[in-house]
């Protein structure tokens, strides 16, 4: 791994941490805690993306320990983003947003068993309330847990994919060319 890619890991992890805190400024019900993982994968491939996801979860756990069990979700996100980058799905919003919706479903499927078995579906207030809504709608416990995770992840991952697409297109070509996957991710190589 080159020095540039090594440096990208903490920078991307810090981007996730800063954005998940900064999203409060616009009062949107989003996490954006996988932005750095998706961005690092789109720029530098799955190894850097997975490392970024693991570091993000580890450092986030120092703030809120409930993040650590969800490290598996970060790994899945990195692998999915790699496939999306290989397919050039970051070339426009038209391809990135549906891909983000797909990741939302996958992330919900991955996080549901963790949330159900470890926390009884009570990871955050919002998810617990949507899970309670699912129970009130007559869903079984695991189904209600998936419903809560799905509501949280579906829009969040689509917005994250769109945001990463904007960043990749906003990077100067010369800067993007320094990262091995950036041009392929936007369909320019």
């Amino acid at each position, binding site marked *: *791994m*080159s*020095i*540039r890619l*090594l*440096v*990208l*890991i*903490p*920078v991307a*992890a*810090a*981007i996730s*941490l*800063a*954005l998940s*805190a*900064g*999203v409060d*400024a*616009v*009062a*949107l019900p*989003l996490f*954006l805690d996988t*932005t750095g993982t998706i*961005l690092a994968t789109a720029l530098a491939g799955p190894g850097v993306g997975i*490392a970024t996801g693991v*570091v*993000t979860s*580890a*450092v986030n*756990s*120092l*703030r*809120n*320990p*409930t993040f*650590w069990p969800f490290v598996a979700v970060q790994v899945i996100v990195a692998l999915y983003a790699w496939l999306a980058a290989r397919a050039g799905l970051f070339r426009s919003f038209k391809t990135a947003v549906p891909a983000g919706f797909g990741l939302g479903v996958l992330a919900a499927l991955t996080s549901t068993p963790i949330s159900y078995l*470890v*926390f*009884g*579906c*009570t990871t955050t*207030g919002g998810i*617990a*309330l949507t*899970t*309670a809504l699912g*129970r009130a709608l007559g869903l079984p*416990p695991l189904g*209600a847990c998936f419903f809560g995770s799905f509501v949280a992840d579906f829009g969040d991952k689509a*917005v994250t994919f769109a*945001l990463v697409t*904007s*960043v990749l297109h*906003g*990077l100067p070509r010369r*800067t993007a060319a*320094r990262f091995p996957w950036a041009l392929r991710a936007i369909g320019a190589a």
Partner: protein
Amino acid sequence: MTRLHPFTLLAIAGALPALAWILPAPVGGLATAVVALALTLTPGASPGSTNTVTAVSPGSRPGLVVFRTALLTAAPFWLFLLLLHDLPTTIAIGLRVTTMVASFVWVVGALPPPRLVEAMVAAGWSASVAYVFAATLAAAPVLRARARRIADAQRCRGLSARGGLAHRLRALWALALPLILSALHEVDERALALETRRLVPGARRTSLSPPPDRGAERLARWGLVAACAAALGWRLR
């Protein structure tokens, strides 16, 4: 407690939640939760070194602040568990979550990250691994502060975070894009700084002041691993 080797502190913080989930509920969870909460009251669990504690009132006892932080972090889980489950399930899961929260809050208070990095370097971990962990801890508050500055600057230019969803998403873009692009432009500078210090991937460094790692502590760490394995074997029997 702070005199213990960082790996010992991490082993305790990892073993308690593991035992809480392995041992039968609610007795196992209760025992581990009591131990974890007792640890938050030990000297050395300092709010000054923890990120989870945001405010310390004058005259408060540091140990109690860490204890209170653990309780306040765990409390919402109990509330939501009670909303979603019956009482026995709430107690079983709640005690496990309380153990996990209290263990992490304690270890964050008792273990300054630079000391952990020193221990990792002294133990022969690659300097790259230690760098990634330390650099993330250093970069996160810098980028958070920059995000606040960008938000303030955009507000001065008339950006409003009120209104409909589309309006808020536009506001998010105006905040996030400058932050991410500026961070990415720093990658080359940081890489150059590391290269001039000969920190290439795979390089090994020597620690300036490695934390002492006594034989008894190493034995205790293996003992914790053995205890978790034995408990798991007993439950699966």
